């Protein structure tokens, strides 16, 4: 069985925290590239970027075991990358290339890296929470001490599947974590305008007899510790936890949305609370030099620049791909 001890954030050294920072920078740059490629027409369809929300994915992933399960939403690039998908695989998928993460059959909203337990990004709001519950149930049945994590938005707390999931996970005491990325908007509507409680996820946890925590989702070490504690409880058989990580998206909801419905002072406040800046402060406190941080920035820039080039130069999806992978035998036959 995999080593289960995950050290508290206070015991992480400069090297560990720099790695978290670099991974966030990698996601930030990939999201920026996805935005620019969409604007220039090379990415079709839609994107829902997670720039600004990197700390939730990176902090959580670092606190999990490699064999744990992660389920995400259409705003899921950061979760795929935090679980090991490369910028190149992701950008190639967005650009409909044969080398894409899902061989161009998923697109931006469905990034998946099953080989490292990232079991998908789902575009029907709330649909993946029951799946995470099922993965946790399966872990229990197989006796593996794995945990499953569902990441979802604030808007997701008002759909039935959210409440069905919390209740079932609670009564079966399953090793599942419900991590809400509260970015304060469901599409274009402030969450407070459509939700009767101030903390859309955490305030509902009590109704299902679940513990909850509201945390600064932009501080990667805070996220890391909250997820570490919740995962430890889950592995010990103490059941699910609801974590509400407050964060903010830097881009609009999707595509080219300029997000003008957000007040300027609110945007400014959150841009001043950027997860990358917070991590840089953490690195400063650990005596990491500016030079070392800049080198990490340069490495991330290089990886993403190379990824953009590689994705651009990759072959388009093979048309035959449209007809594969319906069934487990790889085919699509529905009749004799």
């Amino acid at each position, binding site marked *: 069985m995999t080593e289960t001890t995950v050290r508290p954030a206070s015991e992480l050294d400069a090297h560990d925290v720099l790695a978290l920072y670099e991974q966030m920078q990698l996601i930030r740059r990939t999201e920026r590239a996805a935005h620019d490629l969409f604007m220039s027409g090379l990415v079709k369809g839609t994107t829902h970027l997670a720039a600004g929300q990197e700390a939730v994915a990176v902090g959580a992933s670092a606190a999990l075991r490699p064999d744990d399960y992660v389920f995400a939403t259409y705003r899921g690039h950061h979760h795929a990358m935090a679980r090991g998908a490369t910028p190149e695989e992701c950008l190639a998928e967005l650009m409909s290339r044969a080398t894409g993460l899902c061989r161009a059959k998923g697109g931006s909203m469905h990034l998946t890296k099953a080989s490292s337990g990232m079991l998908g990004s789902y575009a029907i709001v709330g649909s993946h929470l029951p799946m995470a519950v*099922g993965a*946790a149930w*399966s872990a229990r049945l197989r006796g593996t001490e794995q945990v499953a994590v569902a990441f979802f938005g604030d808007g997701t707390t008002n759909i039935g599947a959210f409440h069905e999931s919390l209740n079932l996970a609670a009564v079966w005491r399953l090793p599942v974590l419900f991590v809400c990325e509260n970015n304060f908007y469901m599409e274009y509507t402030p969450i407070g305008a459509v939700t009767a409680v101030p903390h859309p996820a955490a305030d509902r946890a009590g109704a299902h007899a679940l513990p909850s925590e509201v945390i600064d989702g932009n501080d990667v070490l805070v996220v890391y510790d909250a997820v570490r504690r919740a995962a430890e409880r889950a592995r010990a058989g103490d059941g699910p936890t609801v974590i509400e990580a407050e964060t903010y998206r830097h881009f609009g909801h999707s595509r080219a949305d300029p997000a003008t419905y957000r007040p300027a002072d609110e945007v400014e406040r959150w841009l001043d609370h950027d997860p990358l800046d917070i991590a840089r402060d953490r690195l400063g406190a650990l005596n990491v030099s500016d030079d070392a941080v800049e080198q990490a920035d340069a490495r991330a820039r290089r990886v993403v620049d190379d990824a953009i080039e590689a994705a651009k130069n990759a072959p388009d999806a093979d048309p035959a791909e449209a007809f594969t992978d319906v069934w487990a035998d790889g085919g*699509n036959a*529905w009749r004799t």
Partner: protein
Amino acid sequence: MADVITYRDAVAEGIAREMRRDPSVVCLGEDIGAAEGVFKTTVGLLKEFGPDRVWDTPISEQAIVGAAMGAAMTGMRPVAEIMFSDFLACCYDYIANEIPKVRYMTGGQVTVPLVVRTANGGGLGFGAQHSQAVENWVFAVPGLKIAAPSTSDDVVGLMAAAIRSDDPVVFFEHKGLLATKGPPAAEGHVVELGRARTMRDGDDVTLVALASTVPVALDAAERLAGEGVSAEVIDLRCLVPLDVAAVLASLEKTSRLVVIEENPYQGGWGGTLVSVVADEGFDLLDAPIKRIAAACVPLPFADALEAQVIPGVDAVTERVLELAAY
């Protein structure tokens, strides 16, 4: 072993056989454990396999089917029960958007070996929200296999194939057939998904049926024989894969096709079947194709009214005689 078994008992027997041979098979659903199922189709399972294999759930159709999906993606073979097939509407997201899509949209990264079992169909006077034949709801979505047995031995054989399938299967158990009896399935009996069964040989007309309409077709065929019309009866057993080849082969002999469905004419599975026959088997036909399906109204409560809506033996016999005279 008894020389007959009810369709109802065959459901539990089919599940139990697979649970004995494969520890990754687990069941979940409302009232399936201690209560042994609202339709008594899970009798004995909790007793034999215990609470780690047979799980009673809250009334949470999305969580039931969604959790089955998550478990199937991570190494289990869950068998989820949705008590009445009408309630598939409460978890239709999983039937329409999640389960059939996830393998495809991830480029083949995951498999979903699960079974959703559900009690389907009318004839019991349960009214508009507990009587529907909804196989057409599922048939509308590529990516799901569909089994709908008409006999006890097929219940066992198709259950084995469904649970062993690496693809998701929706398994319709017909409420009107639960009390019917048939010979028990042989040990190790498996019916490959997508293979129709010829229930009666005939030369003049092919009656294609599914689940509850199979006994209707057989009764009609008996009466038709008295009128000098020899009807072949094909039980499709599955809608996906759809055994079009068996239908076309029968038409080579009979050249007349009647499709008998319990789901509404509007959007019913027969529409797809006959369109394939029109496309690929037109030359085999000597008469127009007939579809006999439920009327396009919600199902009424009173027996006399329900009988107006769901095609019975009289209606089928009459329509086939008209066609035979063509």
